């Protein structure tokens, strides 16, 4: 048996109680939602909180309100299955349901939450291993060691942003609410992620994610394309989220192209967006945008598949995404 290490488990009923518990727990405390990321990590001793505070019984974090006109607010403790099946999400923000459906497996989606997905730990073949395995290579910088096995001369960790909803939320222009005993603040999804495999969030560990806000849709269209080995289970080794807003005559008013799974943070390719905005979507523009994304993708050799191939796949995946939006 791969057992969890010992920890104290707390189940608050209100947000104020939850953040107070976290303040009391200090740096050894962690929040847990579905546990589908945290518990495997704890079993492998990658994360070893002494106090685990569950957010699943916080009723305030389990509702969805609003629609395409007003924008919506999604409670982070909602399961991925409920996101996939939610009528308002399917009608007004179908890309969110589509991307959620591509996450892992039905069994995991019954447990995992949308909030946990947005805050998923970064992943790496040298890190997502059990304690003995990691000890065998004398650990790595992300946990217990001091070298990066992927890029040994690198001062930073390149563990990969691997959550499917992350590029989607950045593309949609989502914002999230973070709450702690010190107060609350709103952060853009784009500003939430940090290009460092260890400190991958611009969020303090004591801050609780309590709301996910999506702006009004205003005719914007969005898609998400995922590359992985199997049709279930596997994390993305490349994810492309694209949004497009076009005038009556087809001129692109606004575009966003976000790459996931190829760096420690989602990559917004502004060069590609610039190529599209102000023009009609023709084959040439789309190919140029895909090329710009290819240049920006910088996968390393720490996930499934060859890194060069993952980089090359950015081109056809961006093209496919744009063609679908056309």
């Amino acid at each position, binding site marked *: *048996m*791969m*057992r*969890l*290490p*010992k*920890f*104290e*488990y707390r*189940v608050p009923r209100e947000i104020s109680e939850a953040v107070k518990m976290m303040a009391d727990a200090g740096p050894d405390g962690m929040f847990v939602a*579905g*546990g*589908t990321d945290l*518990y*495997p990590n704890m*079993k*492998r001793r990658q994360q070893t909180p002494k106090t685990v505070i*569950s957010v*699943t019984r916080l009723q305030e974090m389990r509702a969805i309100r609003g629609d395409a006109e007003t924008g919506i607010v999604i409670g982070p403790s909602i399961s991925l*299955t409920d996101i996939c099946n939610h009528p308002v999400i399917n009608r007004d923000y179908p890309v969110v349901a589509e991307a959620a459906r591509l996450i*892992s*497996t*039905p*069994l*995991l989606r*019954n*447990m995992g939450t949308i909030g946990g997905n947005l805050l998923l730990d970064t992943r790496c073949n040298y890190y997502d291993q059990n304690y003995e395995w990691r000890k065998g290579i004398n650990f790595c910088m992300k946990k217990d060691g001091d070298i990066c096995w992927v890029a040994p001369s690198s001062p930073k960790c390149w563990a990969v942003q691997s959550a499917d909803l992350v590029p989607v939320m950045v593309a949609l222009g989502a914002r999230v609410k973070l709450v702690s005993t010190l107060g609350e603040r709103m952060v853009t999804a784009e500003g939430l992620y940090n290009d460092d495999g260890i400190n991958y969030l611009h969020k303090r560990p004591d801050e609780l994610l309590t709301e996910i806000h999506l702006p009004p849709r205003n005719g914007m269209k969005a898609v998400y394309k995922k590359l992985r080995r199997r*049709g*279930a*289970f596997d994390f993305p080794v490349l994810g492309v989220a694209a949004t497009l807003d076009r005038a009556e005559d087809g001129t692109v008013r606004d575009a966003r192209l976000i790459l996931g799974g190829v760096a420690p943070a989602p990559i917004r390719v502004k060069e590609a967006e610039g190529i599209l905005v102000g023009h009609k979507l023709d084959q040439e523009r789309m190919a140029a945008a895909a090329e710009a994304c290819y240049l920006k993708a910088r996968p390393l050799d720490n996930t499934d598949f060859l890194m060069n191939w993952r980089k090359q796949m950015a081109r056809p995946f961006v093209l496919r995404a744009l063609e679908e939006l056309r």
Partner: protein
Amino acid sequence: MIKIKPMAEDKKQKAHIRFVLNGETVEVAFAPHKTLLEVLREDLNLTGTKHGCELGECGTCAVLVDGLPILSCLALGLDMEGREVTTIEGMAEGGCLHPLQVTFADLGAAQCGYCSPGFLLTAKELLERNPAPTRDEIREALSGNLCRCTGYIKIYEAVELAAARMRGEEAEPAREIIHGYE
């Protein structure tokens, strides 16, 4: 692995919860950081629920909690307080096998059988939600359960046959399913 500890210390460290297991209320005491899988197998001696990867990557540990299939290796025992849990031991009713158990046995959908408890419970929930699933819907619903023996086809066929029988049809397996193609 059995650890022997003095009684007093053991008591202090244990959590007590009450939940409904296979239709009956049970009370159980266990070390608070145990997963539902460990509680079922080690503290309730129900070893029908299997342990595979223990990391969410295989589905053999699936059980139903409040009717939904989840992975018992990633659920805490403590979270079961007040819930309803169904394991493979609770699938037959009054000595009568569930139609899925019958077709799994008859059609060779269980070979080594290690994956069967997880598949059966996951399929049970599918058929309750969708009595006439298409092959693709079955494939999708069972995509979180790995089987290293059957190649899945026999499992899909068994679910289809059980579904037909549960809809009240007098379904028999096609000849090829039992005897193979000539």
